[in-house]
């Protein structure tokens, strides 16, 4: 299969994913209507589809480790952040959830989402089994939401103070960088499935020879993606905290 053929045909129109998307759109509209910030919501849905329906998903399913990493980053950092931002500013959680919104839980969820799913056994399972993959996707979205809640919760008083937020984000960035560094420099495969993929789509020779993506280089790029762009996302969030800290009109008053 050539690259062109691949990008035109390898869209996985998974009925569960599509019905979930439609359901959540309806639910969002019913729950928040005009109060919601639907542009963020639409962005979240688009990125979600990009991660699970586009050829990226086909590559991530057992072919290319770095594609898996892109999918991972989108699901854990981008989609939850956009969804949290789409909530109306007046929203409050029931008191049942307070223990979930402790910063330690959020931090552990955000960092755990990175480390846990890159244990070789789990990483392999998620890349080969549809069920495990679905569990993975769900858990990434949930853990990402818990992580971002600390800085992107709808109400100002639910968020960490800006300086605490910087510490929170910076330490998370460091913890993920360490994993990225390990993946980048590891001489053995962390996720062996990607070393010898089952060639379901007849794409392997294009990937290995056409794109020049050997399994070593693939893992290296995967590690670098976790290390550098991931940290860039955290760095952007840190700058947003600085901006929030220095904003002349604290949002506290408007909340």
């Amino acid at each position, binding site marked *: 299969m050539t690259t062109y053929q691949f990008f035109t045909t390898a869209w996985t129109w998974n009925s569960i994913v599509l019905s979930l998307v439609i359901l959540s759109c309806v639910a969002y509209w019913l729950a928040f209507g005009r109060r919601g910030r639907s542009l963020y919501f639409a962005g979240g849905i688009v990125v979600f589809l990009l991660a699970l329906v586009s050829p990226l998903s086909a590559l991530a399913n057992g072919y290319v480790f770095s594609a898996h990493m892109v999918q991972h980053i989108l699901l854990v950092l981008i989609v939850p952040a956009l969804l949290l931002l789409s909530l109306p500013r007046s929203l409050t959680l029931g008191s049942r959830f307070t223990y979930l919104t402790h910063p330690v839980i959020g931090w552990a969820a955000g960092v755990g989402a990175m480390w846990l799913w890159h244990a070789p056994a789990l990483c392999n399972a998620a890349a080969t089994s549809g069920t495990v993959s679905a569990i993975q996707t769900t858990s990434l979205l949930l853990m990402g939401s818990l992580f971002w809640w600390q800085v992107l919760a709808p109400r100002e008083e639910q968020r960490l103070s800006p300086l605490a937020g910087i510490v929170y984000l910076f330490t998370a960035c460091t913890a993920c960088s360490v994993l990225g560094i390990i993946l980048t*420099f590891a001489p053995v495969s962390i996720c062996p499935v990607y070393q010898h993929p089952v060639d379901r789509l007849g794409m392997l020779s294009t990937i290995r020879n056409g794109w020049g993506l050997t399994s070593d280089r693939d893992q290296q790029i995967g590690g670098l993606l976790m290390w*550098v762009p991931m940290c860039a996302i955290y760095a952007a969030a840190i*700058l947003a905290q600085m901006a929030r800290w220095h904003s002349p009109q604290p949002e506290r008053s408007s909340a």
Partner: protein
Amino acid sequence: MTMFRDAVLDPAKRAHYRLAWISTVDHKRIGVLYMLTGLFFLVVGGIEALVIRLQLAVPNNHLVAPDRFNQLFTLHGTTMIFLVAMPLLFGFVNYVLPLQIGARDMAFPRLNAFGYWCQPFGGILLHFSILAGGAPAVGWFSYAPLSETPYSSSPGVDYWAIALFVLGLGTISFAVNTIATVISLRGPGMTMRRLPLFTWMNFVNSFLILIALPVLNAGLAMILIDRRLNGHFFLPFRGGSAVLWQHIFWAFGHPEVYIVVLPAFGMISEMIPVFSRKPIFGYEFVAASTVAIVVLSSLVWGHHMFTVGMGRALDLFFIITSMLIAIPTGVKVLNWSATLVGGRIRFGVPMLFCIAFLIQFTLAGLTGVSHASAALDWQTKNSYYLVAHFHFVFVGAIVFAMLGALPYWFPKMSGRMMSESLGRWTFWLWVIGFNMTFIIQHVLGLNGMPRRIFTYPDIPGWGWMNMVSTIGVFFMGAGSLVLIWNIARSYFYGKVAGDNPWDAWTLEWATSSPPPHENFLAVPPIHSRRPLWDIANPDRPDPVVGDDQVLLPDHNKAGILAFLFSEVGFFGTLILAYLYFYAHPQAGPGPKGLDVQRTLVFSVCLFASSFTFWRSEVALHNQRRGSMLGWLSLTIALGAVFLGGQANEYWKLFQSGVDLSTNLFSTTFFTLTGFHGVHVLIGLITLLIFLWLAWEGDSVSAKFDAAFKCVGYYWHFVDVVWVFVLFTVYILPLLR
């Protein structure tokens, strides 16, 4: 002044005065000591530079032998970074930062003195190597395997590593102190959002120090273990990795550039507004871009290693991050320039140096961005183009900022102004000399002249360009002599300065010059970023920034947490090094041979000791002395059992013929568990001291409570580190 002369004349007073300086814990005196040490080594490093340039002035020169030349540039680089730039900058910070926030002193005055005394001690250690069989001749980065025993058998590298370790400890204690001071000792109304930029940048910079320096310290420990105990970390023929040393060194080395440039940025951010008679343009952007620099600076070290052959994927990412970091730096340059626009500029000597800084630093940034491109870097890496680039950063930016900051803050330190006319002489001699020496080196580099060569053949053009470069050094040397004369003369005969000679707006100008021992008789009210402007212009004060409420956490807690933060980097580096080698199969003893069950039992003891310590704290809180002593004794016993277990494991390994030099596994194993063991041992000794104090009945004071809490943080931290070590060393092989 007259006081000083009396002191010089009267022997009794003189003795007291000398002792007062040696035993001082006053931040102002320590700041001055830092600066004098830096100036002394500036002369040393400058003479080294002069000899280097004299040797290179003409082709085929034989003024110094090749090996001596290697020693010279190694000492020159190490001296200028660790013994000139850092102490000079830290001296300014030490003197000015507590004054700027309205504090009486640094948070830990004795730690401050310790940090200072590490500097001359480290400097003497480094230079003592000359007498002890030869200075290091391996470059300031000490690349392995050249720096390993088979290739550098003289003890020079050992002295180099130990000296840097000592200096690193001093630097870390300085950073811990700065963080605790800014967090806990701010005056009334001085909220974090109102900090002067010099203070803010040095506060943020201290975190960068805590991130970067421990990585170097871990690397130094490894290279010393290689050299003294026959370890294998960086020796390729024994399975080690020379590239790992480069990664470790530059993971420290690149942030180090920002560690020395951020304080310089802070100085510029203070001087430009004062001499333009305008507030800084975009305070928030200057402050936030500093944070961005700190975060990004630990992601760019690979651009020092493009020529190593890391592979295209790594090159590509490091190219992108290296270009990214130019953005926050460029934001700063734009802000400083915009501050100048429309200001009533006074061209005093500090301002002249600020303007020179802006121009030279922008040029340094441009050649820096060119190096971020790996393709260009491959061509110019080992040439004088690179030498020119980093001297533009170190001299054109950092030294010029300090040369400006000296006349700016000298009146505060001495009570007298420095001479403007002599200052102009220094300025022009330095600017002309600096540009003569280093602009031409760009051309030399692009013409193919490699760096680190002791001489060169008579290639057309090279001779005269090198001669121009050498002549420039004499201008800088003359400028330095004028500067030293200016300092000495102004100290005795300068115009009396008064409290605020520059009409500046930050707090250090609100007290007398020099400030009294306790700094302030009364701290003026603070509602904005320019408190003295508000006092001078009550009719049009600056807008109030935020609310006045100041939160001041306990400085002991801030200090110990900052210190433990640095320990994370140290152990993190050791664990990563362990994992790096663990992945390669080794001949000989391996992790499978370790007795996991036994270790688990002893680990439980260690973990339990965290619990017993907590109980002891609770007992102390409830003032039940007997219970507190009991739990504390149990904690010590459990810790001792753990250490005993470790010692027993070591003993068994030694019995079976396994020691640190056996293979790569044993090197990494003993290093990682050994350093953890040392930490447990230090914790035990501290706990014993506390047990003794409590036994003596000293446990009732609030001071004891605070200190006991700090030991607790340390003890729990050591236990948490063991969780990671236990998992990495003992559990991971079981999962394979």
